[in-house]
Structure formats: structure tokens, C-alpha cells
């Protein structure tokens, strides 16, 4: 089995248009959630979100590209550009055939669907632009990444709601680990902050009208965000041979299904995925210093997640840190695991633990060290990133610090 390392990271999300801006915001505990600026927002009962602001697609892409790139694809391509650029890889010949892209998204081109349903139903138009289908399809982002960087190996899109990115990265990890691919571009993207996207979520009555406050006794729901995170997962031997800078090692991954309820989370299902990732990576519980929680800020998720962590880690649960960066960037649904993996990388590389902001009052059912409100310096060797989706589909990924050789 091959070891797998991360050699590139990229993002655009409500906290920043690249990785360094995102790290800075996470260190400062800055909130990227604010009033939504979208059409018909006055008809929504939920009017806040983690929007990517000051974004002008025409400065990034030409008209032909915009005709084919939904917002979720645009975010993906920008994040991929940063990640692949950092890796220093170019794909040609055998390497191109042995490299692919697997991405997560839940809504795909939801803005495109929303705009065009609006055109035909509300405006009564009888004709839509010819590229609506290739623009809205969930695999559009993965396909455009493969086209842009000549990734000709295994490529596809994973949709498991809020766990999509983690499931995608788990596939990428295992594909490199087993030798199916040498390099996998992976992560996820979401852009569903449009009238229809928010309206549908309102229906579930799980959304907060004012803030995302994970683990706080005063929490009152989740807040949606948008953006993308993309990483380069690479065969360690290959990365080492070419002298690539290694950000960290992908140590383990596991997934599980609650097989119980379409929306209510299960402690057992979450615990099996967490324990599974440790077992897969041959990681001792005591090695885990930080967990980036799923931490949606709903009553049900946060207490269930804390109970699962307590069950798996026993006494060590009180030693480790667990925070939810959704308090800052919101819930990026299918892209959330990818952006949250950045917090894990920051913990391993920079020794900074991103906080759970908006924390007001302890909840006895979430009695863990949730790194309230202020980032913390800490030296950690192993981090976990949790994702527990609607539909009971859980995916947990473990990263390990990569010891830089002496003299480097």
C-alpha cells in the first residue's frame, strides 16, 4: 500500500479567496457570515449566509467559460488552480493517464437551475440557453478540472449531501493508496445560496436566523455557506522523488451508514466512522490532538457528535480539542469537508487550532474542549475531520503531520 500525502491546497470561501487568507481569518476567529445579497431575499425568512463576497466572475473567466461554468464550477476551478499551482505538477503522458479528479457536491449547478426555472416559470420564457444541462450537472466541476489540467485517469463526482467532500477525498485517498492513481485532485464545492436553495432549507426548520453557534447552549441552527476546497493527493514516493513540498500525510479514512433515519443523526453511526478512521490509519486514540467537528450548530448534531467522540475516545476525549469552523464560514454542504480540512492542515503545520466562534454558554451535552471563540496554539500530530450527512452517511478523514527531514 502506498502512503498518500497532500502537496497542494486551494480554496475560495466566505473567509477568503485563497488558503492564506482563510488561515488568517481562522486564526483571528473572524466571521464570514452576514446578510445575504441575492434576488428575492425579502421573501426568505432566513436572510443570512456565508456568501463569497466581492466576487466578480468576469475578472476570472471569459464569456464562453461563464456560459458553461456555474458558480460551483467557478469556485472549484479557482481552488484547483491554487492547489495544483502549489503542487508544482503538470500533467502529461503517463502521469496524466494515472491522475484523476474526484470531487464532492450536493447541489451542483443549483444557481443555474434556479435562474432558469425562474425564466420559464416566473418570466414565462419559452426558450433557455443551450448550455443549461452541461452547466448544471453535478459532474461539471470535475469534468472542467480534468479538461483544464489534462487529468485523464479515474474522475467522477460524489454526492452524499453534507459528507460529499469527505467521501470524495476518501475515494481519492484510497485510489492513490492502492495504486489506482498516482495523483488525485480532490475536495468539493457548493453554491446553493440562491432563492430556491435557501427556501428549500427553510422548510426543514433547522436554520438559524442570526448566527451559527456550534456546541453553545444557545445554538439555534445552521447557517449555509458557499465555496470550494481542492487538494492534491499524491503518492508519497512520487512526491518525495520529485522533491515536492509535503503539507501533511493522509493517514486514514472510514465511512459508515446509520441505516436508521433520513435526517436524525445517530451516535453509533458517527462513532463507527470515527473509530474506523483511527483503525484504518493505525492511529492510537491518544495521538489525536484536534478534531474539526461536523458541528452544524443544530441541537441534534452537536450533542450526538459530542457523545460519539466521548464514546470513541473515552478519557482522552477531555484532552483533545474539537472545534467547528462552520461558526465562521457556515455550512458549505457538499463542499464543507474540503474547506474544513484546511483547519486540520493549519493545526498540523502552523500549530494553530481554529476556534468555534459565537460560543456563549456551555451545554452539558457538549462538554468537550470546543476551543471557544479564540484560536489556540497547540502542537498536534494527528487531526480528524468529521462529516455526517443527512441520510445517515458518515465519512471521517485523518491527517498526520509530516515530519520534515532534518536540514529542511
Amino acid at each position: 500500500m502506498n502512503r498518500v500525502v497532500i502537496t497542494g491546497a486551494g480554496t475560495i470561501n466566505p473567509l477568503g479567496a485563497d488558503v492564506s487568507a482563510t488561515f488568517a481569518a481562522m486564526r483571528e476567529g473572524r466571521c464570514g457570515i452576514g446578510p445575504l445579497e441575492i434576488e428575492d431575499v425579502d421573501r426568505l425568512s432566513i436572510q443570512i449566509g456565508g456568501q463569497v463576497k466581492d466576487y466578480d466572475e468576469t475578472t476570472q473567466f471569459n464569456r464562453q467559460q461563464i456560459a458553461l461554468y456555474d458558480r460551483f464550477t467557478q469556485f472549484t476551478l479557482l481552488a484547483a488552480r491554487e492547489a495544483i499551482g502549489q503542487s508544482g505538477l503538470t500533467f502529461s503522458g503517463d502521469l496524466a493517464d494515472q491522475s484523476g479528479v474526484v470531487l464532492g457536491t450536493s447541489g451542483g449547478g443549483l444557481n443555474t437551475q434556479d435562474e432558469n426555472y425562474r425564466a420559464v416559470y416566473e418570466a414565462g420564457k419559452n426558450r433557455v440557453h443551450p448550455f443549461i444541462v452541461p452547466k448544471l450537472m453535478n459532474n461539471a466541476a470535475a469534468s472542467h478540472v480534468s479538461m483544464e489540467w489534462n487529468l485523464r485517469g479515474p474522475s467522477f463526482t460524489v454526492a452524499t449531501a453534507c459528507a460529499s467532500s469527505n467521501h470524495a477525498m476518501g475515494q481519492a485517498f484510497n485510489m492513490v493508496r492502492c495504486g489506482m492513481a498516482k495523483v488525485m485532485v480532490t475536495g468539493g464545492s457548493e453554491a446553493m445560496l440562491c432563492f430556491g436553495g435557501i427556501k428549500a432549507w427553510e422548510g426543514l426548520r433547522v436554520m438559524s436566523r442570526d448566527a451559527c453557534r456550534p456546541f453553545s447552549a444557545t445554538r439555534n441552527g445552521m447557517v449555509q455557506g458557499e465555496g470550494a476546497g481542492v487538494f492534491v493527493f499524491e503518492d508519497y514516493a512520487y512526491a518525495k522523488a520529485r522533491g515536492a513540498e509535503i503539507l501533511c500525510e493522509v493517514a486514514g479514512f472510514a465511512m459508515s451508514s446509520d441505516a436508521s433515519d433520513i435526517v436524525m443523526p445517530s451516535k453509533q453511526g458517527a462513532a463507527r466512522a470515527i473509530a474506523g478512521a483511527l483503525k484504518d490509519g493505525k492511529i492510537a486514540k491518544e495521538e489525536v490532538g484536534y478534531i474539526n467537528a461536523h458541528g452544524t450548530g443544530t441541537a441534534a448534531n452537536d450533542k450526538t457528535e459530542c457523545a460519539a467522540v466521548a464514546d470513541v475516545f473515552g478519557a482522552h476525549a477531555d484532552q483533545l480539542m474539537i472545534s467547528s469552523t462552520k461558526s465562521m464560514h457556515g455550512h458549505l454542504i457538499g463542499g464543507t469537508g474540503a474547506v474544513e480540512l484546511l483547519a486540520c492542515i493549519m493545526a498540523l503545520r502552523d500549530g494553530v487550532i481554529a476556534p468555534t466562534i459565537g460560543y456563549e454558554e456551555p451545554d452539558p451535552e457538549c462538554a468537550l474542549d470546543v476551543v471557544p471563540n479564540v484560536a489556540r496554539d497547540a502542537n498536534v500530530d494527528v487531526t480528524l475531520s468529521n462529516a455526517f450527512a443527512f441520510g445517515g452517511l458518515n465519512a471521517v478523514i485523518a491527517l498526520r503531520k509530516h515530519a520534515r527531514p532534518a536540514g529542511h
Partner: protein
Amino acid sequence: MSIKDQVIAIIADQAMLDPSDIALDNTLEDIGIDSLGLVESIFAIEETFDINVPFNANDPTAGDFDISSIAAIIAAVEKLKLEQAT
């Protein structure tokens, strides 16, 4: 603007050329319009002239809408407008 000038403007826009660079005997291929560019052009023609263009991307040369040259496309649009008027 005449139908001819409007069609040329649409096609030039799609090809990212100046209208003066489009010759009537050009084919779409000559000016770099691929299959996606063609369906976008037809969409723009339908929107501009409020007509329905009988075009099937499975077999672009079938049907009454002749796309063999810029002149042919202009003639086809003029014919559709005339039919619409009568």
C-alpha cells in the same frame, strides 16, 4: 439594422471577431465556431428575431435551415421572418 447585419453581429460575437472580419462566403468552421458555438448562435438568433429555428444538433445539415455559409444562414433567417409575417 438589417437582418443581414444582425445575423453577422450575432455570429461575429460568438466567434469573437469584428463584424467586418466576417465574409458572406465564410463557413462556420472558417471562423472557428464549433458545435457548441453553433447552438449558442441559433439560440441568439431565436431570441433576437423571435423565431423558432428548425435545427437538430444530431444532424445539423438536415432540415430547412441551411448553415453551410454565413450567406445561407442569413437567407434562412430572412425566409423564417417572411413566413412569420405571412
